[in-house]
């Protein structure tokens, strides 16, 4: 320890020697834009020191400086101005617009602000205003199409559902593919805790970062490369998303008050192409209980003795779109944000209150969220500043949709609707005694659940309270030296209650599942910064610090089965209560340092280093070092290139090594107390069983010497600005090598164990990103402008190797033998059973006895990751009018849709009408006869199936998935916003300072897709799983249209 301290302190001692002192005085003044209007929020720093301030709402500032000091005035979109302090105490500045925005300042790792021109890696900044043009309730979704290199997936129209973001493809086989989320310098959890399982039915409750309130966000910086995130060390491999929240700004002699209100209406995005010619039933025979299975007779207005639901004689008639619009509601979303802020040279303060109220398309689903944000800072003196920010969010989610399988509460497009089933008949669903009524009864008299009973009587609730925030103190004891201490917390209290009311078919006795989860994260940082300009050409900024991070997860779950009193969810009211408890705690120490050496403001070399000590790694092997180097070279300045065509050019290069540690408690061999003896179909038993408790040995052999996962990466980039910034190009090439993957590798279960935890395998990512933006058209008077931006990213994530003898690793399992697997030499693959094919013709081989296709051997059927993703953003403005539109593209990759499988096997959709009543021969098929002498006879299939139903229902026999695997490409019109901002002339002297009215729409149109009937974005997996490319029973996604009003007082 002593030697470490000496090592740390030596550079500090050296640096102190160069400190100097002068006679300070107060400089004040006013900053305006090129039109002479006051410019609030201009950053003013004393160059080579850490002293700085901002202008207030009227553009006024004051700052302590010495004669001879250089003051640097910078503001986004304005050319930076340098002024040397002379005898005068007043310096007024008029800034000039700078279309090149060369001096844009971004917040990077650990909350460090940097000028983009000095960055040796690419970043993507999304401004807060972009997030609220057509607001999303999950902030992750609002990044869709706006950032290069990210892929966003969500689980459809489920209120309060999760969204997953991955940056530059997948890097980890163990699921560590989620980026780190950082709000105002503090790490927050983006975890998703699953209640239930896909096999038993689960609820996709939101990911942790979804509570970040878009109205409070100043900007989001997506750090993609390892060099950008290297200061996060062992948690940096999947990228980082740096959120900076808004600070208070003063108004015209007082506070700034703003009000932003949106109301939106949601409807189903896509309705399957349901057939309306044939009724519920089987083999042409009507069956009143055959919901989701429309192989009955032709609908001819015939009278049946047992009409659906009424079970009384009635006429069969087709219901438009199978009654889907009768069942699903029109969703309504209301978002209201009120914010008040103020600032002067001494303090800034912003209080924001947001309410979000949603009713979903799924009957009985709602989400109510209140967010209160507070962000304030005080400049106590030139030497001491303190600030804090805190966000409290309380969310009540009701009626979340069930997904997965084996849960009676699942309602999906494939199994819950039929041509002759009028959904309106399901209302009412309960009688005065609390019994379920208006149920479907099949021809055998077997009842099934009334879907409105499921939606209204069974609870799918989540109450989530979340507080995160930070407090920090900056002390500048010396002019070019500062110390920042920061403590951040993230507390989550997440309570879920899932119930089945007594009388629910398949859960006749009633049950409940009360699941209470707490996640806490504490992060403290102590950062020492030193900045100095050695000469006119050279400047140096050095900082070093420590970080401590602690994450705790606690969970208590009680499931109660067989309730005595209905709707009483106490363990004492259940014939059996099954308690479970879970706890993990992990900690991480980091020591880090960075040196940034600049030469003539056109070359910047940045070196960073971090050493981590992780509690999850073996005690004598828990220290790891993560270095990075990056270089930014503004060649246009270096070579004096300055002309009207090429205005700016920067080359950047970086190299870094970062890592991923492992989860807590992976190192010891344990016997686990067991509460559940598992069975197929989740038909489990529980301990104590006949009075006995149970323990079972872990099925995983713990590792003997685990090391962190290691990512080594390099990146090259090019920034070019043409025509004085009217056309900008940013291109990057990156190459990441991810080794020492920490994986529970499957071992032969005949060894008595199922897995062994070890470092194995390698995944590489390489790719390139291009973003191009242009002021395509601008009228001479400036009234009309068209801005357009295109981004494109192509990432290849290749599993290079696993371990000897291991052909593949299962990343995620779907249903019916469909899996996502890692196979050496490939991207993540969909692994499923195809039809047996004739090698010569590639056609499915038909069984000559039945006319049916046959199952082949399970194999890889394509990458589940896209070939490339892209976005196209346009903004048209004319005077006060503004029109924004975002199109986003996912190209390539495959997906398997179980919903389409159900729609087709159920005879629900129009393609199943072909030859409904005639002879059905599978003409794609071929019959191959083995002559026994090594030769084969081939003929076009001429063997009829029993009927069309036999064809469609036998396609997935023996778990064949191939017919439902589609190219997952889509092109979507993601969002459109039209707004009109009233000019100050129109507003006159009223108390309103600005007023904008807008129309907004999200998820508006599917411009291209090869997947029939459903939204190709749908996925089975929530953000907590590492699955891609499988869809099943998802809550249908929605299209939202609404209006918006923004007011500032």
């Amino acid at each position, binding site marked *: 320890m002593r030697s470490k301290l000496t090592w740390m302190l030596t550079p500090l001692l050296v640096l102190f020697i160069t400190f100097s002192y002068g006679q300070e005085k107060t400089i004040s003044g006013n900053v305006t834009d090129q039109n002479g209007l006051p410019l609030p929020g201009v950053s003013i720093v004393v160059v080579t020191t850490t002293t700085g301030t901002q202008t207030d709402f009227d553009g006024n500032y004051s700052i302590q400086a010495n004669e001879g000091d250089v003051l640097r005035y910078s503001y986004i979109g304005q050319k930076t101005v340098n002024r040397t302090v002379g005898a005068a105490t007043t310096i007024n500045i008029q800034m000039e617009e700078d279309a090149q925005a060369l001096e844009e300042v971004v917040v990077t790792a650990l909350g460090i602000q940097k000028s983009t021109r000095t960055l040796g890696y690419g970043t993507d900044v999304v401004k807060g205003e972009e997030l609220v043009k057509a607001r999303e309730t999950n902030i992750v979704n609002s990044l869709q199409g706006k950032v290069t290199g990210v892929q966003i997936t969500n689980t459809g129209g489920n209120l309060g559902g999760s969204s997953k973001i991955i940056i530059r493809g997948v890097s980890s086989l163990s699921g560590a593919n989620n980026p780190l989320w950082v709000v105002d310098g503090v790490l927050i959890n983006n975890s998703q805790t699953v209640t239930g399982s896909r096999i038993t039915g689960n609820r996709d409750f939101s990911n942790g970062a979804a509570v970040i309130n878009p109205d409070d966000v100043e900007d989001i910086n997506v750090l993609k490369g390892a060099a950008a995130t290297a200061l996060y060390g062992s948690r940096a491999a999947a990228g980082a998303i740096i959120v900076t929240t808004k600070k208070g700004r003063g108004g015209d002699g007082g506070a700034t008050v703003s009000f932003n209100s949106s109301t939106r209406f949601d409807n189903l995005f896509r309705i399957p192409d349901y057939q309306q010619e044939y009724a519920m039933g089987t083999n042409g025979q009507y069956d009143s209980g055959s919901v989701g299975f429309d192989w009955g007779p032709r609908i001819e207005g015939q009278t049946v003795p047992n009409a659906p639901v009424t079970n009384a004689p009635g006429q069969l008639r087709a219901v438009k779109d199978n009654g889907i619009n009768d069942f699903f509601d029109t969703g309504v979303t209301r978002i209201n944000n009120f914010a008040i802020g103020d600032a002067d040279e001494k303090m800034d303060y912003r209080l924001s209150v947001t309410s979000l109220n949603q009713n979903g398309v799924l009957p009985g689903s709602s989400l109510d969220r209140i967010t209160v944000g507070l962000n304030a800072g005080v400049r106590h003196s030139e030497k001491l500043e303190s600030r804090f920010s805190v966000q409290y969010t309380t969310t009540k989610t009701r009626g979340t949709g069930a997904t997965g399988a084996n849960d009676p509460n699942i309602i999906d497009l494939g199994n819950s609707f039929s041509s002759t089933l009028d959904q309106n008949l399901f209302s009412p669903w309960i009688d005065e005694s609390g019994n379920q009524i208006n149920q479907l009864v099949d021809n055998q008299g*077997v009842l099934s659940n009334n879907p409105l009973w499921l939606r209204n009587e069974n609870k799918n609730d989540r109450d989530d309270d979340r507080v995160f925030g930070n407090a920090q103190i900056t002390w500048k004891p010396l002019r070019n030296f500062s110390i920042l201490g920061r403590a951040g917390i993230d507390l989550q209290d997440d309570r879920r209650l899932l119930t089945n009311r007594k009388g629910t078919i398949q859960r006749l006795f009633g049950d409940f599942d009360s699941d209470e989860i707490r996640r806490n994260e504490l992060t403290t940082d102590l950062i020492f910064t030193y900045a100095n300009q050695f000469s006119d050409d050279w400047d140096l900024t050095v900082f070093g610090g420590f970080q401590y991070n602690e994450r705790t997860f606690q969970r208590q779950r009680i499931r109660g089965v067989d309730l005595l009193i209905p709707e009483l969810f106490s363990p004492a009211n259940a014939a059996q209560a099954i308690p479970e408890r879970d706890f993990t705690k992990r900690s991480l120490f980091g020591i880090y340092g960075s040196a940034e050496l600049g030469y003539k403001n056109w070359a910047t070399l940045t070196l960073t280093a971090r050493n981590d000590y992780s509690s999850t790694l073996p005690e004598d092997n*828990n220290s790891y070092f993560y270095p990075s180097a990056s270089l930014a070279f503004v060649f246009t300045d270096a070579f004096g290139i300055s002309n009207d065509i090429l205005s700016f050019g920067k080359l950047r290069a970086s190299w870094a090594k970062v890592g991923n540690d492992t989860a807590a408690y992976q190192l010891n061999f344990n016997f686990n107390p067991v509460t559940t003896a598992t069975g197929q179909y989740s038909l489990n038993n529980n301990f104590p069983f006949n009075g006995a408790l149970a323990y079972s040995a872990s099925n995983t052999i713990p590792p003997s010497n685990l090391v962190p996962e290691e990512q080594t990466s390099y990146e090259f980039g090019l920034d070019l600005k043409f025509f004085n910034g009217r056309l900008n190009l940013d291109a990057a090439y990156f190459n990441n090598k991810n080794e020492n993957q920490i994986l529970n590798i499957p071992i032969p279960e005949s060894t008595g164990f199922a897995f062994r935890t070890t470092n194995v395998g390698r995944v590489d990512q390489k790719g390139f990103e291009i973003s191009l933006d242009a002021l395509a058209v601008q009228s001479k008077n400036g009234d009309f402008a068209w801005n357009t931006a295109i981004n494109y990213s192509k990432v290849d994530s290749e599993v290079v190797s696993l371990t000897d003898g291991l052909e593949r690793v299962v990343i995620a399992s779907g249903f019916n033998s469909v899996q996502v697997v890692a196979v050496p030499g490939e991207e993540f693959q969909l692994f499923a059973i195809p039809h047996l094919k004739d090698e010569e013709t590639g056609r499915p081989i038909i069984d000559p006895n039945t006319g049916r296709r046959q199952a082949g051997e399970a194999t890889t059927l394509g990458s589940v990751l896209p070939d490339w993703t892209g976005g196209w953003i346009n903004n048209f403005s004319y005077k006060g009018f503004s029109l924004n539109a975002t199109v986003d593209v996912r190209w390539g990759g495959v997906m398997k849709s179980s919903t389409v499988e159900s729609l087709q096997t159920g005879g629900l959709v129009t393609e199943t009408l072909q030859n409904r009543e005639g002879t059905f021969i599978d003409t794609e098929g071929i019959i191959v006869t083995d002559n026994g002498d090594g030769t084969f006879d081939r003929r076009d299939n001429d063997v009829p199936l029993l009927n069309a139903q036999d064809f469609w229902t036998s396609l997935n026999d023996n778990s064949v998935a191939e017919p439902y695997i589609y190219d997952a490409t889509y092109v979507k019109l993601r969002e459109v916003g039209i707004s009109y901002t009233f000019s100050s002339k129109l507003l006159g002297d009223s108390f309103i300072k600005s007023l904008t009215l807008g129309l907004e729409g999200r998820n508006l149109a599917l411009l291209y897709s090869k997947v029939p009937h459903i939204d190709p974005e749908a996925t089975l997996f929530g953000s907590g799983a590492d699955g891609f490319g499988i869809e099943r029973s998802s809550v249908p996604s929605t299209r939202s249209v609404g209006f918006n009003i923004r007011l500032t007082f």
Partner: protein
Amino acid sequence: MKKLKLILLCFVFISGTFSSCDDKLDINTDPLVATSADPNAVLPFVFVQYSSRKVTELGTRICDVSQYISNTFNSPKNGSTSIFLTGNTWGMMYNQILGNLSLVKADATAAGPTSNNVNAIATILSAHIYFELTSIWEDVPYSEALNGQDFPAPNFDKQEDVLNAVVGLYDEAIALIDSRQLDGEFAIQTTADQFYGGDMDKWRILANSLKLRALMLLRNGGASVDSQINATLAQPLMSSNDEAAYLIYTGAPGAQNAMKTIITAFFGPDNESQNVFGPGPPIDNLLRDSGDPRYDLWVARNDLPAPELAFFPDNSTSVLSNNIIRFDLPDMLMLPSEIDLYKAELALEGFAAAGSADANYRAGVTNSLRWWGQDIPGVLATLSEADITGYVSSLAAPTIEDVYNQQYLSAFLQPVMAWTHVRRNQIPVLDAPPASTIGTTLRRFNYPPDEVTSNPNTPANLPTETPMWFEN
């Protein structure tokens, strides 16, 4: 001076952070798990996990392979064994059951003769699992199994070798029981031994009876085991239902037989109203109009025709009775009727030590009738002793075919054993299911992909219609 203060301050900050560093990092021990476990806590897991998985996975899914049930869900009867069926069963047997039993056995062996009782139980249960493994897959890892250190990719042993090893394990268990050290013996809690509450005499009978079961397969495969069979017949064998080995399901939530919970979870209140499990053709053929009281005990609406092979029952067919498809149906591992009927078979084949074929045959039927009509826990519809003797005395002297048919009936609701009987005896003769892709009944499972991909020594899968060595 000012600088000095600052440096001191930094020093205090830094050392304050580091002094607690080691404590803060030394937290990687899960507070909710144990590093060792008492066999009294591990054995219940073995009993219940084995049964839970077996009843739900095999009980509900292969019951129509041997056709004691007409049709079921996700069955491999048509020739294709899904990776979940095979993988879940294999994983349960090797990892969850044999893995835990090998740890219990290793601890007991280290403890010496005072733990012979628990060692014997672990050995008997392990032998039974290997017997079922080879019954399902034929060649399976035995000699290199459960030793990942030396054999990370275990080789597969031939079925004959596995069965001989199983017999050896039963001998080992009997020897352990015979050499128990009672002074200071490990106390098996009655709740931990879910079969016999720690009664080692009954375990010895079970070991010998299971040994006979394994020898019957070896003999059928052509191995020379006659002397071992004679030796086994000379030792105490199961003879009455109070020696039967079965797991009790109380019927309370969390302790319910999945033959019933599959109905309540997915359909409705009970089998008779929901038409899930119907009698298979051989059950109908053997029992209808036979006078066998089991017909009324097992089959409801039995004046109606049985559902055909590969069809579910409906209101126009007979259906399995709520008498047996109930929450508290026990999961049977071995009943004495099986032993009686082996003895009858052996007697007919000339084994003098087996006694009288006729007497054993009648004892087997009697024990089976008593089980279903009197002794089975939670019995609903009962048989009187007069009903039983009346029927048994009406039976003609048995042919070998009669014995085989009774063996089949005695294995009713025992998914692996019923399948093993029909493969060993070829009686009753089963029709191939109408949609079978293999033209016959299923003879084996394919190896699960998890084992295939992780163990290069896994043999190539044989077609699922290929008979096993023991069917010889």
